[in-house]
């Protein structure tokens, strides 16, 4: 599904990722762990096409399509989603209207009929229950007046609504208390199936206790220094990162 080959990328001329190779198959959940500044978020931003990030070398293929050079919206329409580490507040843009516009952009791209307001409301109410969010959020501005934890719920709500093939979860566990973490992990787990893939970025192994990864990659200074299965998370919890540093 996602194939990253020998990727060198960075920002403002500074190289941050130094030769990343990663292949994610349908249905797999990969976790990338590493300290702050190791390049985890850079990888997420490069995959989703954020401005200012430049790719110096290498390639990213998504379902055999070359992602580099595609606009962020075209990447999203081809099935990539990112749950933001810091979701953006956009006052004045109604949450429901925004979510329906996003879903309709996807439906249109797939050559399907757009969803009307009434049907969308029925759909979104079901999704709200899955992440235990109050309906009052629907009429607010995008992330307006939401706490850090509520914003993360809203990210997962968007994921459940847009049903992407690949979900990148950028520090989705940060800022969540244990109950909220369980709700979100539960929402994600129920969403997992044999077709959907995930790339979870975190520097705590905590999220991975609730959401079992197929693979874990440790990122240090822009390079994967170790990859393994779920047990690597516990090893990291015990030993930290220093034993992996050169």
């Amino acid at each position: 599904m996602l194939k990253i080959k020998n990727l060198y990328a960075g920002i403002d001329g500074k190289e941050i990722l130094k030769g990343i190779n990663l292949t994610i198959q349908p249905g797999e959940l990969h976790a990338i762990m590493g300290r702050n500044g190791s390049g985890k978020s850079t990888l997420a931003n490069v995959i989703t096409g954020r401005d200012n990030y430049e790719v110096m070398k290498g390639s990213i293929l998504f379902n055999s399509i070359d992602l580099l050079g595609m606009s962020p919206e075209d990447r999203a329409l081809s099935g990539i989603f990112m749950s933001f580490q810091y979701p953006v507040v956009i006052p004045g843009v109604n949450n429901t209207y925004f979510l329906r516009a996003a879903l309709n952009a996807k439906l249109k791209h797939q050559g399907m009929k757009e969803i009307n307001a009434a049907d969308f409301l029925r759909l979104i109410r079901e999704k709200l229950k899955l992440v235990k969010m109050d309906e009052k959020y629907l009429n607010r501005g995008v992330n307006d007046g939401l706490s850090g934890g509520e914003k993360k719920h809203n990210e997962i709500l968007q994921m459940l609504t847009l049903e992407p093939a690949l979900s990148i979860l950028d520090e989705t566990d940060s800022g969540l208390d244990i109950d909220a973490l369980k709700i979100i992990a539960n929402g994600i787990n129920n969403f997992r199936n044999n077709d959907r893939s995930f790339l979870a970025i975190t520097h705590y192994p905590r999220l991975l206790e609730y959401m079992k990864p197929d693979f874990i990659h440790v990122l240090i200074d822009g390079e994967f220094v170790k990859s393994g299965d779920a047990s690597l998370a516990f090893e990291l919890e015990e030993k930290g990162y220093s034993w992996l540093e050169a």
Partner: protein
Amino acid sequence: MNYLQKQFDALLKYWPNEDQALRDVRLKSFDQFKTLGFPTKKWEEWQFTDFSAIEKTDYRLSWASDLPQIPDQIPGQIEDCHTVFIINGHYQPPLSDIPDGVTVVTGLDHFRSNPELYAINGSKNPFLALNTSMMNSGVHVLIKPNTLIEKPIQLIYFTTEFSDPLMNHPRFVFHIGKNAQANIIEHYLGVSTLSYFVNSVTQVILDENARLFHVRIQEEAATGSHTASTHYEVKSNAQLNVTSITSGTQLFRHDIQLNLQGKGAEAILNGLSLTDNSQHQDQHVVVNHENDACQSHQLFKYILADKSSGVFNGKVVVHKHTKQTDANQSNKNLLLSSTALMNANPQLEIYSEDVKCAHGSTTGQIDPEELFYLRSRGIDLKKASELIIGGFAKDILDSIKNENVKSYLNNKITNWLESVLNDG
């Protein structure tokens, strides 16, 4: 200037039997205008706006003979309103629908019987003086005391196509009687492909405990120039709620003066300016807190595209010995291009201690983080920009209660945005 003298002489000749008191008001005001002259870059309060186009164009006053055949469809009509039509400066009673409890008198009749209401004393605004000398149009609207007018009253001031450059100096008075409540839409529209000039003055008086929703919409043709003064007097415990949306003309200057005169008077002033191409819009607002326990809340936003420019100058003056003042003023501007220009100057003058005041001004471009967030959800760049800009404008309409008025303005903003984003 010469054309104005010629037109003024013609006006005096056109109404030879005008009452002497009114004549005196006109003559005195015209003298004042001549003394002041057109504003120049050296006038501090006028420095960012170039009025030479108005000065150089040979406009003539509109006469009764300029009344065209009434078009079948007059644009801008808002659903379910009482409508008052003024076409090329001429009030059209047969087309208009005046509800019980409201009196509408043509300006000309009202000037004659109440010249003292129109006299201006010592104003430094040349366009106010010019209007007072030449006032040839407009209506006086009285909402009788203790009357509640449910449906909005929409005044449509429409300038049609004609064959030479026309000008009008409409004078409006909206007088809301004690305990009365109304919703008045003052709506300027034009379709002329030739240059024209509308120089309006509106006096709004809210008697004790009155309540007015005043919506001012300026969507003149791009060929027009519009200068305006709006003067509000708010008596004790009266509540004024103003929303001003302006998108038309090449050149727009609006001076708003709000005097909170009575104890407990309250006002909300919201404004949205939409400019593109080489449009220029200049708004000056002065809010005077003259009594105790008065509140004023101002929010003025500009959205500027292309090479357009805007000026916002807002001043809140809290007079001596007033108590429990609550005043805030906010100005926010969004530049949609690197060639758009905004001049903002919020000011506070406080001569009292018992005051809660806040003011601020920000100017910036669309936040790239907001754009990326929406695009990362599959929303294309144009639609994402439209959502963000529309969201920026949205709270200006928050205090409008009437759904028809709100939806007219929402559509207007959406259409404007679509045209600006399609051009870009």
